[in-house]
């Protein structure tokens, strides 16, 4: 079965060694997803597979037959950016921008995790309602490092969008 990336179908590579990250960047030319460490330790390569955020560097492309992958290119475009992307611009949520695609993919999936009521290490209760607080967002985004240290603005950008989404839902 082929792999679907941002609603387009692609054939998987023949070489089983190709990571999903390298497949995106060098095989099909989607260079938005970034390689930071290539070892699962930075989050720059975060993409969304079947609704869940993962590190594309630690996943073999050949194992993704039939999967639906969303990359930063599938989240928004320069002419039609997502609300979160606009919020990153508004809050200066980046400096060099290298970690940003990973941050945005990660936070986009994180919003669904909040909506599902999934707890995190920062949640006081495992079963009660979870308030969207900066502390929760910091813990949930801790898989995305930023070498420029733009964290304060990244958290502001995300907080604005996820709280607005929650208000819109209720």
């Amino acid at each position, binding site marked *: 079965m082929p792999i679907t990336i941002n609603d387009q179908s692609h054939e998987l590579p023949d070489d089983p060694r190709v990571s999903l990250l390298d497949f995106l960047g060098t095989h099909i030319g989607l260079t938005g997803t970034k390689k930071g460490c290539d070892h699962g330790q930075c989050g720059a390569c*975060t993409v969304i597979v079947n609704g869940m*955020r993962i*590190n594309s560097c*630690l996943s073999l492309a050949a*194992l993704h037959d039939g999967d639906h992958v969303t990359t930063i290119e599938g989240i928004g475009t320069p002419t039609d950016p997502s609300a979160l992307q606009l919020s990153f611009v508004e809050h200066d949520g980046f400096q060099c921008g290298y970690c940003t695609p990973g941050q945005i993919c990660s936070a986009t999936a994180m919003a669904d995790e909040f909506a599902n009521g*999934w707890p995190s*290490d920062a949640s006081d209760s495992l079963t009660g309602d979870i308030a969207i607080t900066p502390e929760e967002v910091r813990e949930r985004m801790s898989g995305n490092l930023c070498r420029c240290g733009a964290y304060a603005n990244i958290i502001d950008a995300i907080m604005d969008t996820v709280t607005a989404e929650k208000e819109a839902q209720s």
Partner: protein
Amino acid sequence: MKPFDLQRADGLAHAGQLCADKHTAPIAGGTNFVDLLKLEVETPSTVVNINPLPLGGIEETADGGLSIGALVSNTATAVDMRVRENWPVLARAILAGATQQLRNKATTGGNLCQRTRCYYFTNIDQPCNKREPGSGCGAIKGVARLHAVLGTSDHCIATYPGDMAVVLAALDAQVEIAGPKDSTRTVPVRDFHRLPGDQPWKDNVLEDGEIITAVTLPAPVAGRQVYRKVRERSSYAFALVSVAAVIDMDGDSITRADLAFGGLAHKPWHDPRIADLLVGQSPSEALFDKAADLLLEEAQGYGENDFKIPLARRTLKAVLAEATGVKP
């Protein structure tokens, strides 16, 4: 990465037959295995994709426990409402490990079988008896901050790095295993990982061709459940010391003290003498110190990790104080 052949498992028996070859290994989430393939620590000739196997469900067992399939993601386990309500310590341990992206891919079986984070093991230019039998142990007399203080040998002082299995050991969960010839067996988590002895390359009791199919939790028990993980930073870091505890009290008397420890040994550490000491007693700081004395009776530091011995004592005492309500 060395070239390898990728096979897809068509059923459990097929997976077992393929993996019976010692140069063949299964891959689940890949969050540990792909890393080690890149580092050429793992150099299999064939890799078997076990993800098509129907091992992705969480089901209640006849005696009120829970069977968690080998391919269930760590996230799916941690957010399962039955786990959150009845075995909260398991959800806590998973949420305290790795990152959301990693937990979304990491599986029950892969998490149990994840390899040590010893820096010599992951660097193929260094000696390591686990990776290359007979080459020596770089960590003994070397950089050993993450390393073990209990159950070590002259051949290897590595730790089992995971969090989930420490809780599974405290809860006395069972590992369900399928063999290559349709055989099955059940091994307590407490006996699943090995001590290094003179065969440090064997992390656990799995034989070639054996695949983990599930982990079974016993029925929930009453009591306070605590997982405390001490680490260098609160994300991405493995435990220096961790303590999993299920403690119950009747009035002023301890009636249950199921404990296991991470970061101290080549396996989640469980010492039945500690429960024997604590049960029937009234909690006090003096009692907690005696429990720590037992735990650490034979502890041995290797320089850089000497700090783990007092740290384990303090962490155990803090967890016992929290779970029994005694002020330390």
